[in-house]
């Protein structure tokens, strides 16, 4: 009789421990991670690019994806010299669905408009928040292109087109 009771108690404890571990893994860890991330994304987010240069992160959109083992938060953002407005992440999630991929330029002779860089990054609770943060900064340092870099690259490719204007190398003309 006592043996049966002990076994039942042990099973109950084992189940409770298992349940607590699952809760920690699937609920608490996610809540804690999302809380830390939200706080981080709503802070000033000043990232060092080099010893003398730093940029503020302006978050443009925010998308949380729930998977069986983890959650991922995919963000798009820009880097600016000046501080951005305080972000409201729930509003950003809605904004991401808007048609912000349509462009309209008004341009006069001699004018050039250089498009900025939009960056994408995914945070995941598979590693600690601190590791995510360090990796995020490293990604920015590797990926960042200044407006000057982009302008220089544009000039290079547009010069290729200019120089080949009178030297047609291709005869394919799609209908």
């Amino acid at each position: 009789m006592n043996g049966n009771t002990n076994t039942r108690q042990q099973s109950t404890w084992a189940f409770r421990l298992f349940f607590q571990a699952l809760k920690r893994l699937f609920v608490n860890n996610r809540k804690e991670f999302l809380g830390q991330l939200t706080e981080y994304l709503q802070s000033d987010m000043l990232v060092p690019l080099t010893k003398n240069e730093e940029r503020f992160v302006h978050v443009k959109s925010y998308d949380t994806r729930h998977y069986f083992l983890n959650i991922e938060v995919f963000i798009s953002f820009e880097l600016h010299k000046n501080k951005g407005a305080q972000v409201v992440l729930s509003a950003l999630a809605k904004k991401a669905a808007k048609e912000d991929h349509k462009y309209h330029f008004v341009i006069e002779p001699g004018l050039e408009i250089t498009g900025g860089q939009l960056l994408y990054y995914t945070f995941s609770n598979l590693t600690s928040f601190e590791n995510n943060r360090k990796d995020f900064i490293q990604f920015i340092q590797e990926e960042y292109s200044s407006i000057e870099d982009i302008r220089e690259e544009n000039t290079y490719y547009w010069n290729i087109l200019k120089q080949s204007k009178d030297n047609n190398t291709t005869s394919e003309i799609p209908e």
Partner: protein
Amino acid sequence: MPNPKSFTLHSTQAVGWIPFFKQLKDLPQTNAYSDYAKLSWKNKKACDYLFFSGNEPDLTDSILSSSSDFDKFLDKSKNYRGALALRNIILTSNANNVKELFCETLPKGKSIGYTPYRNLISRSLKVFSYQKGVGGRGSEYEPSIRYDETGVYVTHTVLFRIGHIGNLAAKLLTGQFAPKMKMRVDYEIRHDGHYAVLFSGSYIPNQKWHLNGHGAWSHDMMKNKLHEIVSIFNANGKSSIAKGNYPSHKIDIL
């Protein structure tokens, strides 16, 4: 006051992917990746992981020919590494030489594709997870425009990473960060109404480019030469975006 003249340009749609090979010995007989893999253990691992994380693209020419089918493909399929579109491009000439340009890119985030994760130990073909980009990262340059004495120039660029095991793991196992890949399109619209389109992309991955719904250019990464492969893998996540170090193709439209 004269009516504005409106001019619609051909749209560009392009997609990039890595071909899937279960093992390095399955690569085609003549390819420079096998030569690169022979140079060191790290090179061998880098190539092995690259092709084992390959896509099995369910992509047909008809998908690339239509913007709605292409959007559906990008929404549903995870068998692409990167994608680019510049479409619905309309150039309008108003009075006093002022021009207006309307264009569309892919919806934000769609340009970054997926890396399939398979079991490296069992070498199972089954994909247990698709990860967006390498760690879901990349970037794009929003369209740039210039109006000068030759005409109007428009461009759009997407940048994404390829790899199997994430950026930091790639660094640990292969000594290199996951290479940064690029796809770029440039338009030159001359004052006489003729225009040219220049497609450029990195040596990796495979690419298919469509203009006005027709196949216009493709790049087969299996035909890369050894020095081109070295330049990609040794870029260490940074210098692979150096300008000019890319295959490109120009089309003139009269």
